[in-house]
């Protein structure tokens, strides 16, 4: 069995936990719950006809990216970088966080999720943000935990990337000295 560790990264209240619940349990709660520390969940999905068990590390969100504990990211095979489209600031935090991660851990697949697309009319981020970052070679998806839009697609894309990475020669999650 292939097992992969995925971390959910992003600012406070961007919908990381909701995305995981939507993906794992197929449900969505409007009521907001703050994640304290880490919540680990799992789901087995077929990737290229191979069952892959995803260990989903839902890490508490921090508006100050400096405070995010990098220790939880050790050994991760991929991550979802979640942005709340209705709050511009969350994009900045996500970008800063991504910089920090890439400095620490090399070459780990990730997908940028512009979440809460069901509230597109309230978005503060630029409408072409997805295109902007896609142009940089990033995988970007507009998602909604509430409607389920692109949720499975997000995990699927990340899984494919992780598996492709795994099959390459380099070792995943190679840590640098922090």
């Amino acid at each position, binding site marked *: *069995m*292939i*097992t*992969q*560790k995925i971390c959910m990264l992003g600012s406070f209240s961007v919908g990381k936990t909701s995305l995981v619940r939507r993906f794992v349990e197929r449900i969505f709660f409007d009521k907001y719950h703050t994640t304290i*520390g*880490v919540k*680990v*969940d*799992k789901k087995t999905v077929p990737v290229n006809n191979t069952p*892959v*068990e995803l*260990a989903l*590390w839902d890490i508490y969100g921090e508006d100050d990216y400096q405070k995010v*504990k990098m*220790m*939880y990211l*050790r*050994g*991760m*095979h991929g991550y979802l970088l979640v942005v709340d489209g209705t709050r511009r600031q969350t994009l900045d935090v996500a970008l800063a966080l991504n910089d920090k991660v890439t400095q620490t851990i090399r070459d780990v697949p990730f997908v940028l999720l512009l979440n809460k697309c069901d509230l597109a009319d309230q978005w503060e981020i630029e409408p072409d943000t997805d295109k902007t970052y896609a142009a940089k070679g990033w995988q970007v998806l507009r998602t909604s935990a509430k409607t389920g839009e692109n949720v499975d697609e997000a995990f699927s894309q990340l899984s494919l990337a*992780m598996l492709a990475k*795994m099959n390459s020669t380099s*070792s*995943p*999650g190679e*840590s640098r000295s922090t």
Partner: protein
Amino acid sequence: MAEQAQRRAPQGQSQQDPPNENDNHAFEELRHLIIAPEQEELADIRERLDDAGRRTQDMSSVVAEAIQLRREQGDDRALSDALAPTIEETLRDSVRKHPHVLADALFPVMGPAIRKSITETLRSMLESFNEALEHSLSWRGIKWRIEAIRTGRSFTEIALLHSLVYRVEQVFLIHRETGLVLNHLTAPSVAAQDPTMVAGLLTAIQQYAQDGFKTQRDETLDNLGWGEFKMWVEIGPHAVIAAVFRGHAPEDYRVHMREVLEGIEQHYAAAFDNFKGDTDPFRGAEERLTPLLEERAREAVEPGKRKPRMLITVSAIILALIVGWGVYLSYRVHQWTQFEQALRQQSGIVVTSVVKEGGRYHVRGFRDPLAPDPKALLTKLGLTPENADFQLAPFYSMDDGILQRRIKVLLKPPPGVTLSMKDGVLVAEGAASPRWIAGLRDRATWVAGVRELDDSKLQDANALALKDAKSSVESIVFLFPFGAATLEPGQDQKVALAQKNIREIVAQAVALNENVQIEVVGHTDNTGVEATNLPLSKQRADHITKALILAGVKPSSFRPRGVGTTRPLRTDDTDEGRQLNRSVTFQVDISPVAP
């Protein structure tokens, strides 16, 4: 009524009263007619209100409905609060004055309640008993108790120290870096949590602890506890082994975990280096991890398995006690039966009834004073005299054994006398003093059970002694040499014997009031002539007489006499015959003293 008033008023005014008075009167009458009924009703109402008896009567008809209505109105405790003190007081009075009324009323519910309470108590007691047995009756329990006394610690503490009973329910092999589960084992019948989530959380906690407390990489969280579960964690360079267990695992289990982890680290070193998320290469680690589960699980003591053994042990002990008690009781019954049989066969005791009441045997009947004490018989058979009550009236038994004893006790036969009973006749045999014989003749028939005395075989002991002494003396032969009147040497003993017997004869004769004459007869053989033999024989008789007188025998009793060859003891044909004829013999004559 108004019409009637109208009709009466004109009539009154016109005939009797002056106009003003008439008006007043009419008005009063009219007033009376109008309000009288209401006044009567008011008076009646006032009377009802003032009259406590009527008020009570009125209330009694609606009080039940009023309470019912109040109760139906909702959850109002006011009614209960108001009634409670009265009801409590009433119950208290009722119990004090007529306890049986409440007891009778409660009887149907008290039985089941008491039974339930007793059942619960017994169940609880049995469980406690089981627990106590488990720790107290085993050799291990005794050792712990001794250790507790020796060290001054409580028994519970010692038991806990030694009872490191545990069961490892899950073993995780976790990739240290990623927190992913590489392998996972679960004990049979254990509802396991999802290993991926548990391993992830454990790793997160590890990482949080390391980061939060700024510890070194080798300073790790090595145990966790929640409820009855504990988790021990051993961390290697690449892998982590976590064991979840219940109870108290010994410290050497951690050593075992460490050894297994080291083995896995060594064996799967390459797999760890190349680990990208594929857990298949670690499938074989199950073989190494299984002993952590299996081996420890075997040592673990499962309560479910232990209880039946305890139950069997306790049941066996109880059964053994019951059987033992039964055997003991039947042995006691057997003992008692034996005793009863022996008592019924005992001479001098007549048993009329044996009743067992209140755990004691009550024996009734008769007992001769000379019969043995039944309590002594009880003790001899190993029974407790306190468990028996004897009510035996005294009586004279005619049993031979008791009769013999009674005769002996009452008649005190001297040695040499035998007393026996035959068909109510007391047969006395042997020799006794005349005094005792006289006493026997007087008292024999006084003894209960002796009808007649047969003393025909009973002899006077004195007469018998005199006769014996006479025979003895008359058998003595003093021998003399040829032609001499002095004794052959070596016959001193004969002289002494003769002296003794003659004294006895004299003494008995005095006692029997008899005269004694002892003729000392001298003999010779036929050698020579009679003219010399006769004097020689007389000299021989004199010689013996003198010797006896010298020894202190009364001289008047002797009559020395020589008979020469006229009364030979043997024929003189042989030397032996002639020797015997050269002798002196005695002839004792006993005759009653002349009155």
